[in-house]
């Protein structure tokens, strides 16, 4: 009996120390609602353009004929090509790969891996005897862009299944987001929560909410379309932390957490950014 109470007590202690992902998400929305009481939080899917009017005008002008359209078209072509074995990407995904971006990353209860969309695309290639594509830019990013394009307007719906490994992956991603790192000792949070909407030198910082809804992105600075993990690497370098490899466990866990935080928000990828 006594041990039962101890067990209960321990359970409660653990439960209160670890909020559930859903509690985290709601608390985060509340955080931004208090910081920006006059803003529609759903605007944050547009990153810095939710905050910077002058930049927004130029961005809207770019959206008239955005540079990522080239990637969508290339991606559609690549997506519809058949592999040497006669199969295609459509065979690897639910609903033939159309309109499913919002479900990624997902936790695979069989392998225990976090499956990002890019991971799934390359897994599909490997399963069909094709060589995997490079992670950061090029064909993989273009295919990802096309798949994102077919999912526009859907709501981000990342699921954390009832599996301790999934929750652990989520928690690791969360710890990563809030941990200071690099010579500048910045956590993702320092820029994208506390300073969201502020200027860092010439740049306006985007908010964490909605940060995962619009990838891949054509950044003018890159001059091409690139994946979220390319941006992770760049963020790390900017605070002088040695980046991890794209699609490493750490980055996939980070994407899992980050995407869950955008749950319920509109998918609007691919996007263009400065």
């Amino acid at each position: 009996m006594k041990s039962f109470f101890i067990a209960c007590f321990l359970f409660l202690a653990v439960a209160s120390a670890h909020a559930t992902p859903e509690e985290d998400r709601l608390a985060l929305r509340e955080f931004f609602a208090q910081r920006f009481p006059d803003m529609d939080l759903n605007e944050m899917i547009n990153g810095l353009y939710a905050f910077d009017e002058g930049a927004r005008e130029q961005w809207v002008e770019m959206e008239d004929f955005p540079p990522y359209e080239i990637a969508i078209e290339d991606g559609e072509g690549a997506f519809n090509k058949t592999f040497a074995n006669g199969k295609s990407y459509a065979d690897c995904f639910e609903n033939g790969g159309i309109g499913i971006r919002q479900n990624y990353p997902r936790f695979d209860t069989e392998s225990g891996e976090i499956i990002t969309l890019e991971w799934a695309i390359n897994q599909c290639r490997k399963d069909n005897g094709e060589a995997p594509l490079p992670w950061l830019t090029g064909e993989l990013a273009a295919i990802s862009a096309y798949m994102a394009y077919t999912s526009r307007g859907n709501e981000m719906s990342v699921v954390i299944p009832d599996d301790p490994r999934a929750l652990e992956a989520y928690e690791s991603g969360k710890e990563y987001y809030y941990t200071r790192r690099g010579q500048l000792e910045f956590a993702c949070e320092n820029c994208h929560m506390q300073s969201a909407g502020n200027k860092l030198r010439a740049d306006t910082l985007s908010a964490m909410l909605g940060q995962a809804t619009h990838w891949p992105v054509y950044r003018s600075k890159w001059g091409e379309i690139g994946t979220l993990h390319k941006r992770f690497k760049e963020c790390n370098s900017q605070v002088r932390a040695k980046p991890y490899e794209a699609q490493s466990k750490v980055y996939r866990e980070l994407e899992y957490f980050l995407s869950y935080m955008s749950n319920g928000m509109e998918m609007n990828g691919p996007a263009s950014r400065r």
Partner: protein
Amino acid sequence: MGSPIKIRAKIKDDIAEVKALMPHPMESGVRVDADTGEAIPKHYIQEVVCKHNGNVVTKAFWGTGVSKDPYMAFKFKGAKPGDKLEISWRDNTGDTSVKEITFK
């Protein structure tokens, strides 16, 4: 043969509004390849010709100061649904690309 040109065109009150996006590196010749340390040679579109039913309506001459994957927009009068619009470019290496569409 260069990458295909993307054209978006519509007719509004007898005026054709044309927008085009042309995938092209537009190398200015001043950038240095980070890996080799060598200057990346100039590679940019020099001339764009836009024809309406075979007649030139707008010609553009460009320098290296036009952005990568160039975008241009222009308008002209007298276009009807079914009319043809052709846009072509030529770059400093002699490479070209042509695209024709029909107004809806």
